[in-house]
């Protein structure tokens, strides 16, 4: 009887071998990260692999299902479809307009608002307010303000004798309008990043430069700007990537028009995929976007590494 009991308990302890502390910790850790890992595989890595495959298939309303066609979609985009280069050009024009304007304004505002004075909180609050506002609301209001006739912007311009264009109905002006309104929407974010970086610069540096008789501009050029370089690089890449994925703003302000004048890559992907159901072609476009963003990120990392050495 006693022997049987002993046998039973030893059998039990054999079935559940004692884990080492390390093993137990590892199991605990993987339990902690398991929701993240499952979600990551299901909604990110899986789809990323799938989009590569989709981009190599012909899949639209006619074919109904995916048939493998190799790199045909990429060839179509790069050499057959004139829309693609137009869209890519628009995306680059948008980025080239938005990034410098956004960064210059963000830095100027940050320089003005990095030291305490009466009203500094008021101004910071004002310039950041559009960031917490939904892009949809922002686009709706600006579309209203920028109407050709009766729009508030043109009525104000009329007060000083300027006959404003029909902003969102002329391709070039529409591009200008979506860039500027997007800058106003997002500049607050870069402003606070610059303010944080400026406040981290020891005041002694500036004081020392001033003792040696440096002017404000010289202090900025020789002391502050070099010290801001890492922040500037981060802001540059983030703003650049952000400008390539702009979608809701364009969707609501211009719908890609007029005459496809503001048709940018993210909007084109949406249109091809969900409006025209060209799944294969849209997936190839998504891959192209992925590569652009990847290249930008790698360039940033390389620059940064070189910067540190």
């Amino acid at each position, binding site marked *: 009887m006693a022997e049987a009991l002993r046998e039973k308990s030893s059998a039990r302890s054999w079935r559940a071998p004692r884990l080492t502390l390390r093993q137990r910790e590892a199991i605990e850790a993987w339990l902690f990260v398991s929701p993240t890992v499952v979600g990551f595989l299901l909604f990110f890595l899986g789809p990323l692999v799938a989009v590569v495959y989709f981009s190599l298939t012909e899949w639209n309303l006619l074919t109904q299902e995916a048939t493998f066609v190799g790199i045909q979609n990429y060839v179509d985009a790069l050499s057959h479809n004139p829309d693609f280069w137009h869209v890519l050009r628009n995306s680059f024009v948008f980025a080239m307009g938005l990034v410098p304007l956004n960064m210059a304004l963000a830095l100027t505002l940050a320089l003005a608002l990095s030291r305490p004075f009466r009203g500094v909180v008021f101004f910071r609050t004002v310039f950041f307010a559009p960031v917490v506002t939904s892009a949809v609301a922002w686009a709706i209001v600006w579309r209203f303000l920028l109407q050709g006739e009766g729009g508030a912007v043109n009525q104000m311009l009329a007060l000083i004798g300027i006959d404003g264009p029909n902003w969102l109905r002329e391709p070039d002006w529409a591009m200008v309008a979506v860039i500027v309104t997007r800058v106003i929407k997002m500049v607050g974010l870069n402003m606070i990043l610059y303010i944080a970086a400026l406040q981290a610069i020891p005041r002694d540096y500036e004081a020392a430069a001033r003792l040696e008789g440096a002017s404000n501009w010289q202090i900025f050029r020789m002391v502050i700007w070099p010290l801001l370089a890492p922040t500037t690089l981060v802001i540059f890449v983030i703003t650049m990537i952000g400008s390539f994925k702009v979608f809701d703003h364009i969707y609501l302000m211009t719908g890609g028009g007029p005459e496809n004048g503001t048709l940018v890559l993210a909007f084109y992907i949406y249109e091809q995929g969900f409006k025209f159901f060209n799944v294969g072609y849209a997936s190839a476009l998504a891959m192209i*976007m992925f590569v652009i963003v990847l290249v930008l990120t790698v360039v940033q990392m390389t620059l940064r590494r070189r910067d540190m050495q």
Partner: protein
Amino acid sequence: MTLTVRQTRLISRICWTLALLIVAVPFVFPFLWMVSSGFKSATEIFGQPSLIPRVWRWQNYVDVFEYQPFARQYFNSLYIAVTVTVLTLAISSLAGYALARIRFAGAGLLMIFLLSALMVPEEVTIIPNFFLIRWMGLTDTHAPLILLPVFGSHGVMATFLMRQYFLAIPRELEEAGKMDGLSRFGIWWRIALPMSRPALAAVSIVTFLFSWNLFLEPLVFISSLEKFTLPLALSNFTDSYGLPLWHLQLAATSLAVVPILIVYLIAQRQIIESFALSGVKG
């Protein structure tokens, strides 16, 4: 006439303030014009412009709710944003804790994989995700509007933010908890989480707004009116030609934006800091 140092300083201060006030106009004006136009009639909106409506038309705010199930849509946005926030807090702080505190095989590789998710825009994976959600039978439900933000790049950003914060908590406190016989889970729940309130607050604020403002996912996944979220509903105040019904659209937009702005004005320091902490998203 020569100016004293004090005088020049005062003059430059005034010039700066004036310049800032002028720059501030396009940041403030849209909000004022939005609220004011939301109180105008359809005809007054295109008449002589004035910031104060001639006739305050409160009826707009009744019509907004009759044109489409706006109260329901408002509630949808609210409960989805709260759900996304709570889930993100739980999942990102669990994973962030393990990545900060436990040394385990595969941690390095996992970090690299997660980091890569930060760089990929939602637009790249939205097409396969659409088929995945359809295969799961979840199109035209709120599930994708919860799942995709929680597990997408926003959730990963939250995980790294939490990890960064946990790294800064002194280990000794956890050792003491271990002595008292707390399990890993107990240490996370009773020691690590209470100590990281600022990070939890930052994740909450940024996540709530992220979900509240989400547009592409609702646009792709939701088709029935009563399941719309606010951004989708706002874009839907149109006449039979698809042209905006401005007075209703702007009244509805005011209803969506003004409560957020009021909270922002009260807690602006905390909210701005949260965005600075989560850094670099946008």
